[in-house]
């Protein structure tokens, strides 16, 4: 049979459990705005009953544990989407900046090339006119400077992206260190059977931040976890973190090393992946196209320029009027093997040296016409200069537009996933208020029970006194 003392113990267990549950609610309410916090729930179980044959009596309630509510599969989806979002948002903003060099303006390359050929057409109407010749030189100078400005701006952007690489690697190292420390704290608590929810939340938050920077895979193990990059370079193993290093390459850009291996080209996701994609693929691709255009244009113009005669009737090619070898008179300095766009420059300052004449007379415009004809000839990889430039504009615009679209898509998916996470793990004040009422009522009820037992015990004691 049961005793009043046993009932008192049951009621007490209720008071203790409700206090614990109340503490959980209080903690949830306190953390309602804490980023990454997962709501906690008290796990209440009925205490083991005692069997006093033929009856079985309950022995109250036990607050078995406080559990953080989260969905591990959802968390890993969020990580992946965070990586994609990080990559595309970085790439999109880099390309957004790149494409401003290719918007239609008075100084863009396309306009400069059009104006250059226009000036030659004008010269063709009066080839001996010095001011028209000067007009061609000025327009050629504008072509050169438009290429220079654009190429410089691309290089500058590449340099600043390179700086971002170093900063992002620094952030990654800081986060992996933090995660390794949190691993220690989590496993210390879990080894003694305690709830490590808060540290797990902090670790999850750090992993999310890390995911936004680089592609990581999470491999959970007992009480701990291992982080590796997509290509298998270790970042965190249990309580140890592995730092990534940077080292400049021959081009002056930073390569990323893990354990002595260059893993730069294998990082494809996260902000670092996006930065590297912009720095090592997108911008170099545009640079190559620009160099091809600058080189093709300068070389073709020079070829025509050195096939005629200047205003004074002197041949501009490699052979002088007297038949002796001479330095050809170029219009553009012959482009170097690398950096044609960045280094494009006009070779002459004397307008009379422009080879407009095809027969040696000052009035002939035959060579100017040949030079003008280049504007519609397939002189650059089978394309006219303007076709080539409009192709570059298309490529730049297309890359920027694709990156923006990917970014929009991935951030929408991420938002939905975060919604889902919040619907599972987020703290609801309504729910907490309701729980508070429940726990408060339960506590009051237990307290009333104790009062009743107290009365009963008192009655029992009185009974003994009367008989005694």
């Amino acid at each position, binding site marked *: 049979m049961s005793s009043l003392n046993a009932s008192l113990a049951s009621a007490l267990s209720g008071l203790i459990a409700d206090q614990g549950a109340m503490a959980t609610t209080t903690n949830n309410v306190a953390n309602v705005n804490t980023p990454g916090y997962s709501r906690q729930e008290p796990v209440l179980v009925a205490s083991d009953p005692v069997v006093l044959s033929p009856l079985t009596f309950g022995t109250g309630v036990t607050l078995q544990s406080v559990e953080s509510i989260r969905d591990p599969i959802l968390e890993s989806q969020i990580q992946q989407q965070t990586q994609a979002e990080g990559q595309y948002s970085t790439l999109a903003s880099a390309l957004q900046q790149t*494409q401003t060099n290719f918007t*239609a303006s008075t100084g863009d390359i396309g306009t400069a090339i*059009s104006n250059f050929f226009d000036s030659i057409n004008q010269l063709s109407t009066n080839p001996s006119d010095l001011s028209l010749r000067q007009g061609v030189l000025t327009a050629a100078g504008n072509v050169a400077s438009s290429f220079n400005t654009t190429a410089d701006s691309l290089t500058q952007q590449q340099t600043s992206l390179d700086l971002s690489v170093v900063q992002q690697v620094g952030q990654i190292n800081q986060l992996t260190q933090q995660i390794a420390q949190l691993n220690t704290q989590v496993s210390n608590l879990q080894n003694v059977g305690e709830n490590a929810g808060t540290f797990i939340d902090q670790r999850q938050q750090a992993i999310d931040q890390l995911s936004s920077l680089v592609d990581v895979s999470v491999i959970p193990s007992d009480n701990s976890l291992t982080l590796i990059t997509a290509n298998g370079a270790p970042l965190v193993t249990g309580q140890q973190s592995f730092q990534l290093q940077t080292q400049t390459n021959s081009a002056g850009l930073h390569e990323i090393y893990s354990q002595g291996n260059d893993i730069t080209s294998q990082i494809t996701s996260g902000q670092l992946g996006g930065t590297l994609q912009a720095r090592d693929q997108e911008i170099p691709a545009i640079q190559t196209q620009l160099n091809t255009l600058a080189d093709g244009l300068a070389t073709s113009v020079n070829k025509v320029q050195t096939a005629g005669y200047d205003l004074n009737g002197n041949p501009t090619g490699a052979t002088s009027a007297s038949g002796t070898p001479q330095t050809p008179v170029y219009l553009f300095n012959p482009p170097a093997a690398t950096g044609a766009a960045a280094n494009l420059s006009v070779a002459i300052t004397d307008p009379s040296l422009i080879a407009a004449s095809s027969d040696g*007379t000052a009035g002939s415009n035959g060579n100017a*016409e040949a030079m003008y004809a280049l504007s519609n000839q397939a002189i650059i990889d089978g394309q006219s200069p303007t076709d080539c430039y*409009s192709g570059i504009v298309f490529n730049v615009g*297309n890359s920027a537009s694709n990156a923006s679209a990917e970014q929009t898509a991935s951030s929408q998916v991420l938002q939905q996933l975060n919604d889902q996470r919040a619907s599972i793990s*987020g703290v609801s004040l309504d729910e907490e208020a309701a729980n508070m*009422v429940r726990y408060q009522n339960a506590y009051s009820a237990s307290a009333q029970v104790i009062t009743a037992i107290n009365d009963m015990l008192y009655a029992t004691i009185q009974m003994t006194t009367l008989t005694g």
Partner: protein
Amino acid sequence: MRVNPNPYPDLLASVAQTQQQINTDEQEIASGMSVNLPSDNPAAAAALVQNADQTSQADQFERSIGSIQGEMQNADSTLNSVITSLQQAISLGVEGANGTVNSSDRAAIITQVQGIQSQLLSLANFTYQGNYVFGGTKMQTTPYVLDPSSPSGVTYQGNSGTNSVTLGNHFTLQTNLPGSQLFSGSGTDMFQSIQDLITSLQSGIGIGKAVTEVSNASNSIDSQRVFYGNALNQLTAQQTYLSTETTELAQQQNTVGGADLTAVISNLTTAQTSLQATLEAIGQTANTNLFEYLK
């Protein structure tokens, strides 16, 4: 089912998105263009580069036509003067051939014809903007100079070169006729015929033949003058074509990259309404939870 207890991130994302839409619409309205960055529409941006180049080319062709037109009009009217002078010479020759003309009258006629000779010389050496128009491509050298040792009395210092200027994508126009072709080509020689007329008037022999010679020269020049007339007509036609092309290019530019203002303004209004609604929704959600009612 448990719902997301914190709707703010979603609402704020929606606000940001709507704000972005408003910015884009405002930019389109301000610039009148739907393609303000290559990424707005890469294919259209590339087409606009082509369009800008073609427009620039067409504008340049119009300017070049303007430059050439002046020269050709002047060349044409100079040739008109040449023909008038030659007609005068013919009249004088016919007058000199008349047996009733006395020697002093004939001397006066000879002086007049000599005057015409020097007039023709200066007409053949006509310059436009510093260039000798009838000297072939040797435009910086006086084409005809007096030369007593030459049978025609002059020497041609120019060449037979011609210039052609591109004035359209498939239109190239020859812009000059060299003096060698104009004044002494096709079996006639203007200066020789005048010299022959003077010589025949002086000697009184073969005046009729010399007059025929001058007449042939005049006819030859007159027929070649058609070159300038045709060229000027072609220039006018090309101008008309180019101005049509420019209009078409402007239309194309508008079709490819112009903003549909009606649609944009309607979008903008929708976006503004949506923004307002979202902000109001945020305001509404602000102060409601169960704790409020547990007092």
